[in-house]
């Protein structure tokens, strides 16, 4: 069973909030599950790196789109519509869906933009699933991209917060995550060495992924002795800034298996964007992930995620998330994350490999990052992940993280959903 949380285990901020997190999760009034079946039939990624000086944004997008089309053996004329997303303030370009249309292939097609900050990529994937699931599209091109080298990332992220109450005290993503790391370590007794194990895992996996940005193994000692950023986080605890794009072709049941003999079926989606203000957030963990995962497990019928899910591609932007957030996903109890890491449960070859791609710590083109998680999870289900392939994947999960401690989730299966 999914381990229940009780108010004693996690410091609830208010009675109301603590109460809403209890298992068993109350049934929602909605049906919840997708009515029409949707599958991923092709994916494409650019070769991600710090600075893609050889291309502009439109060309970067074009590269990912061409690779996705090649993977699905389709031409742009076969595609019914385009969804695209990024974070505008990074590149400083307004109306990106309009500007990038020579690269996205959206001319003469229904084209729209979806964006939710760090969760943009996963939000795009969820949009792809619903828009094809609606029956109004057969084959949809979903594109996430970012050219972080053209931006001042921290300055841009800072404008996400309320100009009066939050902005003056918010010093970028790193410091916010450092607060969560401090709370987690203080609450559970986890150490910086435990967190370093997460970086070591992701960076080792990245060496098997030709598209990853940072393809070089690091040791625990290297992580611990890397330059401090915001206590207790150090350089190698954090994700990089990356230039890159990802494109994923979603298809309806009527054509999916004709395009791809073993497509990745979307079993369900769920998300929670709980907070507007930093002061409202619960830094003891990631409640949005807890709530979203319980909804998704219930929709898909997952009772023991550690046993039933074969691989996860998680948006873990820093090392401590690799301990704390897998607890929120119900893989283990509070404070037990480090044990799973040290036991190798989440390594390639372990019971539930996490981030065989190398994850976000190895590659982070922000607007694409969540969609890369989706593409990598789909590759695992499709059996096309090459050196980083986990054997016999039947069910995979991908996540997105961003905004004010928000979470998105998608689950994929090798078998069509009931």
């Amino acid at each position: 069973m999914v381990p229940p949380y009780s108010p004693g285990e996690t410091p609830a901020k208010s009675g109301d909030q603590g109460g809403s997190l209890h298992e068993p999760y109350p049934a929602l009034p909605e049906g919840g599950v997708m009515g029409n079946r949707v599958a991923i039939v092709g994916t494409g990624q650019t070769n991600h790196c710090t600075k893609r000086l050889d291309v502009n944004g439109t060309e970067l997008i074009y590269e990912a789109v061409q690779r996705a089309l090649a993977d699905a053996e389709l031409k742009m004329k076969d595609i019914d519509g385009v969804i695209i997303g990024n974070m505008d303030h990074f590149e400083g370009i307004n109306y990106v869906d309009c500007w990038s249309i020579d690269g996205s292939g959206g001319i003469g097609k229904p084209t729209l933009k979806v964006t939710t900050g760090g969760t943009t990529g996963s939000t795009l994937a969820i949009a792809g699933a619903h828009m094809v699931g609606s029956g109004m599209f057969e084959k949809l091109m979903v594109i996430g991209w970012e050219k972080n080298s053209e931006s001042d990332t921290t300055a841009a992220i800072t404008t996400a917060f309320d100009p009066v109450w939050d902005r003056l005290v918010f010093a970028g993503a790193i410091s916010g995550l450092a607060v969560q790391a401090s709370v987690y370590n203080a609450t559970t007794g986890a150490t910086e060495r435990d967190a370093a194990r997460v970086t070591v895992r992701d960076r080792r996996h990245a060496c098997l992924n030709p598209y990853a940005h940072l393809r070089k193994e690091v040791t625990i000692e290297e992580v611990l002795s890397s330059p401090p950023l915001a206590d207790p986080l150090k350089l190698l605890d954090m994700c990089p800034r990356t230039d890159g794009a990802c494109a994923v072709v979603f298809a309806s049941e009527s054509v999916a298996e004709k395009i791809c003999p073993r497509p990745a079926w979307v079993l369900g989606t769920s998300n929670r964007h709980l907070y507007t203000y930093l002061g409202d957030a619960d830094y003891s963990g990631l409640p949005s992930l807890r709530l979203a995962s319980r909804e998704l497990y219930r929709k898909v019928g997952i009772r023991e995620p550690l046993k039933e899910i074969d691989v996860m591609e998680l948006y873990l932007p820093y090392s401590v998330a690799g301990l704390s957030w897998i607890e929120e996903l119900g893989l283990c109890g509070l404070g037990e994350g480090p044990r799973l890491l040290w036991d190798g449960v989440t390594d390639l070859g372990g019971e539930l490999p996490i981030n065989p791609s190398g994850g976000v710590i190895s590659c982070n083109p922000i607007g694409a990052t969540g969609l890369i998680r989706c593409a990598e999870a789909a590759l695992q289900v499709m059996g096309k992940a090459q050196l980083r392939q986990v054997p016999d994947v039947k069910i995979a999960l991908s996540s997105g993280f961003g905004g004010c401690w928000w979470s998105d989730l998608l689950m994929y299966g090798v078998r069509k959903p009931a």
Partner: protein
Amino acid sequence: MERVAIVGVGQTKQERNKVYETFADMVFEAVQQALHQAGIGIDRIGNVVTVSNDFWDGRTISSMAVNDACGSYDKNISTVEGDGTFGAFYGMTRILSGAYDTTLVVAHSKGSESQSSHITNAMFDPVYLRSLGIDNITSAALQARRYLNRYGITEEQCALVSVKNHGNALLNPLAHLPMRLTVPQVLGSRLLADPIKLLDASPVSDGACALILAREEVAREITSRPVWVRGVGYSADAYHLGDRDLADCDALVQAAGRAFRMAGIHDPRREIDLVELYDAFSYQELLWTEGLGLCGRGQGGNLLESGATQREGEIPVNPSGGLLSAHTVIAAGLIRMAEVFLQLREEAGARQVPDVKTGLAHGVNGPCGQSHCVWVLGI
């Protein structure tokens, strides 16, 4: 395919400067009104799609500012950036996918906190165009000049659009600029970018709009007068202005074609009773009526002069006053849908047009109408 209906709408008043209201305040007001009109609580809302723009709001992740206000706590939520009509489309697909029974769609825009010229300059190519200072007004002037030259449309005809729409706004208590104007007044107003004069251009307004979509069964439970989505389509054109003939509007023709096919409409001029379209500039109403197939190419001016698009005409266009009377950039298209909803339900108050059975709402994204979204709604 399952049918989807609109069961409630809410609009704030559209004003020059809502100095006492934040984005969240405006969104809360629109959402509360929509829930009130539908007669349901936030607990009946299955999921939320917000619509906003990071540049206009001066915030990255602009949707974050309205999370609390739109009531999305512990619900599934997503955000479309662009005109509200596109957000409504995504909201509808989230119902048609079978995942949700209802979607709340809410869009906001607060132009008073921005400089329109800078924001819209950022739409253009950063290398070749931006440094020329091109913005929404100067790019529209290029399009207007091309359109006027190619079809012999006159500045007087454009001015007449302004006179009509500002006049219609006199009956709309939510409009920003209700005005009794004459053609000479419009022609004599300050030149912004030839041939566009001050009264040919829409203002920049603050406001928000919300609407609630529901699947058929749920819509009938909520209201006895659901407004049905009969057809919807959207399409995008090339980006670089030089790659298009600006006197054409191919993307609108495609978007309308998709919406009409879905709705089974063969002769829009006869089968549609009322149009709310995205008249950011006076010439655009004429051009868009052509793109929507209400008249032939180059006939927009003649259609207007025939009186057909007047409030009392055969096919009233923008009886609300349109964008010329209130331009809440991101919310503007969603407000067109809300206005058509009110007309179809005979709840439009003083601006009510009699016998409206089928209405059309239209939204635009990008420079010179690069991307269009067309909705056909019916009672």
